[in-house]
């Protein structure tokens, strides 16, 4: 049994939930430039792959950051380039733009400035269900969880690290054109 949350913690969680829902709105409304502003300059955006391994070797399940291959391993600079690519109007994989909906749930604070992350930073875990519908009948769903590290910068929350854990082994979509 977890300890009861204090009012302060509950309020913080509501604030963080609201931040994550607002972020989802920016993405689903194709407001990518505003979305980029939510990330710190030193941000890491990492999505490892998952392998089928023995249940006794679960430490080998996920590909290791910087050592093995990932679905994504981005910094702010490349996220900016990806948005610029979408805006060219000739990025065929997103031309016309896909219809995308981000569901975010199971939001839980893992650490609020007292543990392994630094003061003023918090870690938050959430689940995502991202749906992409494209052109006439292309339809994809991606489900998984995220662990974000948020930092308070000039009174606003910014994402300084996002870990994306997609529940797939062989990717069941033809590409990954949207952000998680």
């Amino acid at each position, binding site marked *: 049994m977890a300890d009861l949350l204090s009012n302060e913690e509950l309020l913080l969680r509501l604030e963080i939930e609201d931040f994550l829902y607002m972020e989802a709105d920016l993405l689903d409304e194709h407001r990518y430039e505003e979305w980029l502003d939510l990330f710190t300059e030193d941000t890491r955006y990492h*999505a*490892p*792959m998952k*392998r*089928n*391994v*023995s249940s006794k*070797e679960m430490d080998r399940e996920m*590909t*290791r950051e*910087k*050592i*093995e*291959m*990932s*679905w*994504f*391993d*981005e910094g702010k600079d*490349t996220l900016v*380039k*990806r948005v*610029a*690519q*979408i*805006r*060219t109007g*000739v*990025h*065929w*994989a*997103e031309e016309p733009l896909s219809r995308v909906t981000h569901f975010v749930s199971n939001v839980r604070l893992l650490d609020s400035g007292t543990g392994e992350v630094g003061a003023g930073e918090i870690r938050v875990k959430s689940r995502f269900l991202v749906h992409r519908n494209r052109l006439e009948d*292309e339809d994809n769903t991606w489900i998984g969880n995220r662990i974000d590290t948020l930092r308070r910068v000039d009174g606003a929350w910014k994402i300084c690290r996002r870990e994306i854990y997609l529940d797939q*082994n*062989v*990717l*069941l*979509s*033809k*590409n*990954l*054109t949207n952000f998680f």
Partner: protein
Amino acid sequence: MVQLTSEMKRLVDSESGTVSREIFWNQDIYDQEMEQVFNRSWLFVGHESQIPEPGDFVLSRMGEEAVIVSRSRDGKVHVFLNSCRHRGNRVCRYDHGNSFTHVCSFHGWTYDATGALVALPYHENGYDLMDKSQWGLLQARVAVFQGSIWATWDKTAPDFHEYLGGADFYLATGLMHTDGSDNGAEVLGGIVKWRLGCNWKVPCPDTDTTHGWITHRSTALALGVGATGNPVRPRQDRSVSVGQVRSRYTVSFPEGHTMGVTIPEAGDPGWEESGTWDERPAVREYLREKFELRKKRLGLMAHLSVGPAIFPNEGWLGRVVRIMHPQGPAMTEIWTYFFVDKDAPQEGKTELANYYELYYGPGGVTQQDDMENWYALPIASKGPVAQKLDLNYQMRLSEPPLHGPTEFDMPGLFAHNYSDENHRRYYQRWAEVMQAKDWGEMAPTRSAATRDDWMTNRNGR
């Protein structure tokens, strides 16, 4: 060139440069492909670095079949079908691991790291008439080339070297260590796998030189780089004929292998000079050091940087190997292997992994757009009217390719960089293999020279 039957020529006519859309759609043709092409060809299944220790195994595919690539106690590499001989269940359910036994989860038939049946419940009393040695997992023939592992089910196929037909020279340059020594590469952990709803041949041969300017226009506009991260340069003058320009050619072999080749010249810049590495200093420094060694070892040929697409379903992009595994007439599973030098410093490997992730794979800024186009082909081609319209592969049909050994002391047939010659030769070979009853009917038309022969000739110039 093998004479095609009229029915096959209706599907692939390399003299007039057309291919029927049916071959990307028709279930009967697909079923025939599985027998004629995939059950008889040498197929890429992995790399030795994935299974360095005895007992190491990794799952792979040969066409639609799942196979186990395993290293036995004596260090030998084995490839066998991941299908229990008892009731046909999947024997191994892990992508990789280390085990000297593979136990079927249905009734417990147990196979060792060579694929042999070694234990089964009730054997003493229940199988007294059965010869266990006949009931091991189905073995494929295996060839290891510069660390890469290839397999075929066909006992009558020529050996792998002969199958390459001279392309071994190019394949070696793609797989060797940057410093030019043999067997120094490794596959980064994490084979990138994804499903694409189109026929496996749509991306083949994986050496298309004329799509980049439009398919990858957004990469050039937004990132200021080409499809592989290289700085955008003025395009080669496309008005000149083959033979009038040095630099770059599309190169093909009668065996169906295709690639792009830039003829090395003294004074070519080192690999580190490619602007691709300007923002990746660890790679740049590493290349600067290793390329000097490469030049000492390989001479002029050090500059050769080729990724040969080996018939039928293997392709290259830089040091990335991409395999198109068929999963039905309109479904492909793409597996991508990313290579680095085994002994490179971790910082350089990390920069390379990061580079690969940005451009290649389903999330890559380049590959996303390839997938979009390949995915749309079956959709736009499925109607009965569209199905009757042949596809066009006529670019530079009137220009016979140059004979590489005569013109450049290099193997293969050299055509203009902007040409459909690679596609014509690939589909011609596909048609030959589809109609041939046996290997005698599709024998290569000339003897294969070894990589060392070409290396000596070229450097001895």
